[in-house]
């Protein structure tokens, strides 16, 4: 077997697999951001807060009404999505004709408010959420012990990412959506309810964040800051992939997860910044992002 810079292959394989798991979260979150930006032109800074909400909704469903992980995996994104739709109808829809900056400021403010409210009620230490019994335990792969739940995270995220990509790029509904962003007036003239589509798109993008939140609840601490810690990295992923590029968001999410995983072996101190270094390089060489279309 090969050995790279003194790191045995077993360790390397393990770290690559872990990178893939983290990449799954990046991919699902940046996908939601890309959908919202690509189709609505809103830079959704509230994405991290909504991801956190997904985790909290799962926790609340379990602790207040006894609904377990599997139903929560469907219900929590729906609830978060519905909340997103309320935000879109009541506030965001008023900003579409303005500069991106206004949407960014509004969603950033909303993120702070949502996080503050959760912090006020639930504190900062976090709440426990157990891994569902069907997925507890793990497999010994020889080079590492892979918890079943992490394997599930990778599978679930790949399915969701591919499904979303397929829907937007390959179906009639997706074609309407893309057309509606290009020329809303014309598409509206063909009898398509454009505001409804935009509303549902935002709801869907936000539901993806909620879904990632439920996936994260059993492995990370469910706490009000969990989204704030992640959102900056996810934004970097979206910028590297190319703002608004669906495929770019997915591929960059996984690839950057892998790169970050490797950095943790070779130079752990740098693992928190490696993504931003890559972002800087990409912005210098290809400002529209790796998968972005030149504007």
């Amino acid at each position, binding site marked *: 077997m090969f050995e790279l810079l003194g790191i045995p292959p077993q360790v390397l394989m393990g770290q690559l697999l872990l990178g893939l798991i983290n990449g799954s979260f990046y991919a699902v979150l940046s996908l939601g951001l890309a959908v919202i930006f690509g189709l609505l032109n809103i830079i959704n800074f509230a994405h991290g807060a909504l991801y956190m909400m997904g985790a909290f909704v799962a926790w609340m469903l379990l602790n207040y009404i006894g609904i377990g992980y599997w139903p929560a995996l469907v219900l929590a994104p729906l609830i978060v999505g519905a909340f997103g739709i309320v935000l879109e109808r009541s506030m965001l829809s008023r900003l579409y004709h303005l500069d991106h900056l206004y949407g960014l400021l509004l969603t950033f403010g909303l993120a702070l408010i949502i996080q503050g409210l959760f912090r006020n009620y639930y504190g*900062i*230490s976090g709440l426990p959420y157990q891994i569902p019994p069907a997925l507890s335990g793990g497999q010994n792969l020889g080079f590492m012990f892979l918890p079943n739940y992490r394997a599930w995270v990778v599978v679930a995220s790949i399915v969701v990412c591919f499904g979303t990509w397929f829907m937007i790029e390959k179906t009639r509904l997706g074609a309407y959506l893309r057309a509606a962003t290009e020329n809303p007036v014309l598409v509206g003239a063909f009898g398509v309810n454009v505001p409804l589509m935009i509303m549902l798109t935002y709801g869907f993008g936000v539901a993806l964040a909620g879904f990632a939140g439920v996936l994260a609840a059993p492995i990370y*601490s469910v706490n009000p800051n969990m989204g704030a*810690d992640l959102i900056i990295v996810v934004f970097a992923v979206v910028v590297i992939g190319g703002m608004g590029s669906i495929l770019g968001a997915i591929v960059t999410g996984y690839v950057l997860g892998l790169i970050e995983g490797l950095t*943790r072996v070779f130079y*752990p101190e740098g693992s928190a910044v490696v993504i931003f270094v890559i972002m800087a390089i990409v912005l210098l060489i290809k400002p529209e992002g790796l998968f972005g279309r030149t504007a």
Partner: protein
Amino acid sequence: MINKATWTAAALAALATAPAMAQGIDVKLGVLNDRSGVYSDIAGEGSVIATRMAVEDFGAKEKGLNVEIVSADHQNKPDVGSNIARQWYDVDGVDAIVDVPTSSVALAVAQITADANRVFLASGPGSTALTREQCQPTTIHWTYDTAALANGTGKAVTEAGGKKWFFLTADYAFGHSLQENTAKVVEANGGEVVGSVNVPFPATDFSSFLLQAQGSGADVIGLANAGGDTINAIKQAAEFGITQAGQKLAGLLIFINDIHALGAKTAAGLQMTTSFYWDDNDTNREFATRFEKERGSKPNMITSGVYGAVMHYLAAVEATGSTDGDKVVAWMKANPADDKLYGKVTVRGDGRAIHDMYLYEVKTGDESSGEWDLLKKVATIPGDQAFLPMLPECDFTKK
């Protein structure tokens, strides 16, 4: 920033009681800590409640002390904390600053307090520098420090057979000092450090670092971090079967709130050093019940330490009839406290309060009978063994 509501409430309360206290001594206590960030659960409003409880239990009113409490958020930033401390001392007439978790802020406040000849009752910060490299004449470091934590958990785990250590260290001053203190204790007890990894702070995913620790062949993985980092690391160690495979985790700074957040099932068997556990005896339980009514959670070592330190401070003000820093601190060092929660506490010349520390182990899910029934006592570490010896140059009673 400075909490205006608290200020106003305190001012109104002071106005309301002022006429009766006309001949008493005015004492103003400023509780300065993190009220919105990572450490707001372990201290935050809890330290204000503990201060208020101490003032009531001391019977300040009956003894002619007119005590007012103010509070503010230092946001874990030394510059913000320093500004508030200066404002409090120079403009608002605060006599003592209480708590101040986050060592970097505490070190700045200690200096300002000494310059203003007031008193710093430190409960939240962990750095030993407060009573060593950067010792100040009017600092009282009441509750714990990184050396005491190392002498507790580090020593106990090494003696129990955990000879080979691997550290996961939060990559900033606190993490490095905790690792250094613990490594010394481990080596002094016949153990060795086989490796360490500096983890960027704060971090959510520890799986990669845990796997490196696993691959190192260490018996013990020392977690030289705090708060959310520790919680995530422990949670993920359980997930990756690291503890089941025989490696032990040693959390070097863990609060009861962290264990509560993890749940006894995940944290079972983890050892931790603390100066206080709410369920240890009837006095603690009674204190905890009153505290919980206001706070919604049990007190931890920081809030219990705030209570004791404020009690001893008020006793000193009453005895000396003064709020001058040097006079009050001299009395506090000369007279041991009979602390309700910590037992006998003596304050050394360097300001280090000496009391017993305890090694606890987290109960297993079956042993735990309630959401806060989490710990069982393993050992008592006598005060003279828990803390580092005094540096002669820091003995301010000899100056």
